C-alpha cells in the first residue's frame, strides 16, 4: 500500500483500451435498441446483422448494469425473429427458432459477464481512489483527516478503507524509550 507515490500512481493509471468508468441511464438503451432494430430491418434478411448485437449489449452491461443489458440481449434476437417470419416471409423452422434462442442466450450470458466485470472494476477503482493521493496527516500523532474533515487514527483510517487490520504492539526502540524500568524489550 503506497500513498501519494508518483511511480505507483503511474503504474495504476487507466490504460486507454479500458472503457472509461461512468453510468448511463437505461433509457439510452431503449433509443439505441430502436435504431438497431431499424438498421436490422433496412439491411434485410440476407445480412448477418445479429452478430453486431454484442456491441450495444456489452456497452449496456458496462454502463447501466445487468438488467438493461439482458433486456437488450433478449429483445433484439426476438425482434429479428419476428422480422424473419412476419415481414420477410422467411419460412419459420425449428432451426430458425433454435438459432434465435442460442443467439439470445449467448448474448445474455455475455451481458451478465460484462456487468459483473464492470461491478468488479468499479469496486477496485473505489479501493484505489481511497488509498491513493495526498493524505493530510498530523505530524505529531499521525492521525489522518478524512473526506468529512474528521481526524482519524492512522490504523482506523486504513482499516476502514482496506482489508488490512492492525494489532497494536511495541517496537524495541519505543519499548526502550518508554519502558526503561521494565528491562530489555522482549524478542520478536
Amino acid at each position, binding site marked *: 500500500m503506497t500513498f501519494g507515490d508518483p511511480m505507483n500512481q503511474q503504474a495504476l493509471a487507466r490504460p486507454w483500451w479500458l472503457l472509461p468508468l461512468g453510468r448511463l441511464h437505461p433509457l439510452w438503451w431503449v433509443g439505441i435498441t430502436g435504431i438497431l432494430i431499424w438498421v436490422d430491418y433496412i439491411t434485410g434478411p440476407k445480412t448477418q446483422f445479429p452478430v453486431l448485437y454484442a456491441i450495444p449489449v456489452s456497452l449496456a452491461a458496462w454502463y447501466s448494469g445487468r438488467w438493461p443489458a439482458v433486456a437488450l440481449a433478449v429483445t433484439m434476437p426476438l425482434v429479428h425473429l419476428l422480422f424473419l417470419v412476419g415481414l420477410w416471409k422467411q419460412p419459420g423452422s425449428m432451426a430458425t427458432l433454435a438459432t434465435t434462442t442460442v443467439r439470445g442466450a449467448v448474448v445474455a450470458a455475455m451481458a451478465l459477464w460484462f456487468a459483473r466485470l464492470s461491478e468488479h472494476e468499479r469496486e477496485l477503482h473505489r479501493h484505489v481512489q481511497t488509498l491513493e493521493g495526498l493524505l493530510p496527516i498530523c505530524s505529531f500523532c499521525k492521525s489522518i483527516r478524512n473526506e468529512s474533515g474528521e481526524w482519524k487514527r492512522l490504523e482506523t483510517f486504513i482499516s476502514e478503507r482496506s482489508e488490512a487490520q492492525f494489532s497494536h504492539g511495541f517496537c524495541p526502540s519505543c519499548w526502550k524509550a518508554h519502558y526503561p524500568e521494565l528491562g530489555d524489550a*522482549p524478542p520478536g
Partner: protein
Amino acid sequence: MTSPTAPDTLRVLVVDDEMSIRAFAERALRGAGYEVVVASDGPQALRLVEAQPRPFDLFIVDVVMPQMRGDELGRKLRQQDADVKVLYFTGFTDRLFESRRTLWEHEAFIEKPVTVKGLLEAVSLMMFGHTNGPDAGRPSEA
C-alpha cells in the same frame, strides 16, 4: 508463566495476541506485586480459566484479536461469573462500542499505549477503588 506468590496475592490474566504487550503488562504488574498469567487469545484464556484452581481477580483483555474478540471473551467470562472484572486494553476503543453503547458493571477500558504508572493506576482503581495499588491496603472484607 506464574510466579510463586502468597495465596492472597491478586491474580491477573492478561490476554493479548501481541507478545510485546503481554510482556509489558506482565512485567509491570509483577513489579507491583500482582500474580500474572498470560494468554495469547480468547480460547487459550478460557482454557486457563477452567484449569486454574483459584479464580482470577482481574482480566486485562485486548479487543481486536484473531479467533475471538476481546469483548466476546468478556461476555463468555461474565456468563461463568457475573462479578468478573475486565479491563479492556486496546488501540481500538471505538470497536468496543460497535455492538453496545455502554460497558457492563466491573468493566473499564484503557487505550494503548499507556505508561507503567497508567496501567497500574487503572488496575488499582478496578481492584481497590483507588489508584495507590495493593500496598495502600485493601478495602474492608466486611
